[in-house]
């Protein structure tokens, strides 16, 4: 064996060793890394296991299709209510408005966040009315409604309840409904539930922790 060959063999061994060490470190840091810890002290209820949502077919406030794909690609906050709601829905939308305005979420709101108000009262909440209603809170907010059976496809899997009272002598009726805000991840999985009393500060704080937890584990 010539001296040149011996030199190149040594170099090859060094290169292979270096690559092996590099690959080893990479594998240990990525493939076998410990799962990120579940965030503690959350006020939100983080689901033990993410819940992939199944198909539904609704419309948004521009009369465009709003389905499962519409929930993908960005984090979504969902609230279910009706525009004739005096107390609970305006308060929830105000909370969503304040979460949206949080300085901590500034970079996210522009690219990676959706605020969605789903009306469970499609007879009265037509898209045009919904649009004016939700966009009062923020021009980026999205109003969604649709046929009752399609609304139920979404509410049933999320665990949102609603029901209609008998109309009064003026034909007005109240809609009973759950008061939770639901968090959906960019893959269309239900991740967390924020229950009343809703606080923009704790929702923002919890959302940041949950988002980090989900991204660290994906």
């Amino acid at each position, binding site marked *: 064996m010539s001296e040149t060959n011996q030199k190149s063999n040594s170099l090859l061994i060094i290169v292979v060793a270096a690559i092996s060490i590099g690959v080893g470190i990479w594998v240990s840091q990525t493939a076998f890394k410990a799962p990120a810890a579940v965030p503690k002290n959350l006020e939100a209820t983080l689901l033990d296991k993410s819940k992939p949502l199944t198909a539904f077919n609704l419309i948004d406030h521009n009369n465009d299709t709003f389905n499962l794909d519409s929930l993908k690609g960005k984090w979504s906050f969902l609230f279910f209510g009706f525009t004739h*709601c*005096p*107390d609970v829905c*305006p308060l929830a939308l*105000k909370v969503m408005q304040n979460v949206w305005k949080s300085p901590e979420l500034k970079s996210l709101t522009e690219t990676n966040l959706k605020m969605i108000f789903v009306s469970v009262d499609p007879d009265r909440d037509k898209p045009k009315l919904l649009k004016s209603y939700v966009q009062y809170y923020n021009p980026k907010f999205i109003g969604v409604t649709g046929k009752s059976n399609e609304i139920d496809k979404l509410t049933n899997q999320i665990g949102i*309840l609603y029901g209609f*009272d008998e109309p009064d002598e003026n034909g*007005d009726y109240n809609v*009973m409904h759950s008061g939770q805000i639901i968090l959906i991840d960019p893959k269309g999985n239900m991740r967390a539930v924020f229950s*009343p009393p809703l606080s923009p500060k704790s929702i923002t704080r919890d959302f940041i922790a949950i988002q980090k937890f989900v991204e660290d584990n994906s």
Partner: protein
Amino acid sequence: MNKILISLFIFIASVNTAFAEIANNKTQPSLIFKNIVIPEAPPVASVMVAYLNITNNSNTKQTITKITSPQFKRVEIHEMSMSNGMMNMKKMKNLAIKAKQKISLEPGGLHVMLIKPIKPLIKGNTVELTFMLSSGELNTINTQVQIVD
């Protein structure tokens, strides 16, 4: 003759008392309204809400039987409660406040529901509310719509 005089005296005395009561009511209403908040709502909203504290300053129970406002078609008192996991709203026929008691109408509980604004109301617009009591006493308050965060 004496009987006539006594009757006349009693009559005058009772008229005086009645007038005194009316005058008294004028200066000292039975109910004191404080911290009235009407949050601005989307201009398309068909309902708004008023939150406030009401103190019964009198020595007897007072019952609000009706509320009216020139800015709204109807005004009702509602109570929000949780029922079967849902936020439910119940219309109340009246609202009784015990003597010297204070009640708070606040988010998640009692509220004054302002139904169908005659025209959309925004921050700074004045809302007049008249509370009618079972005694016939009327209390009118004025407040401005405000932005609440």
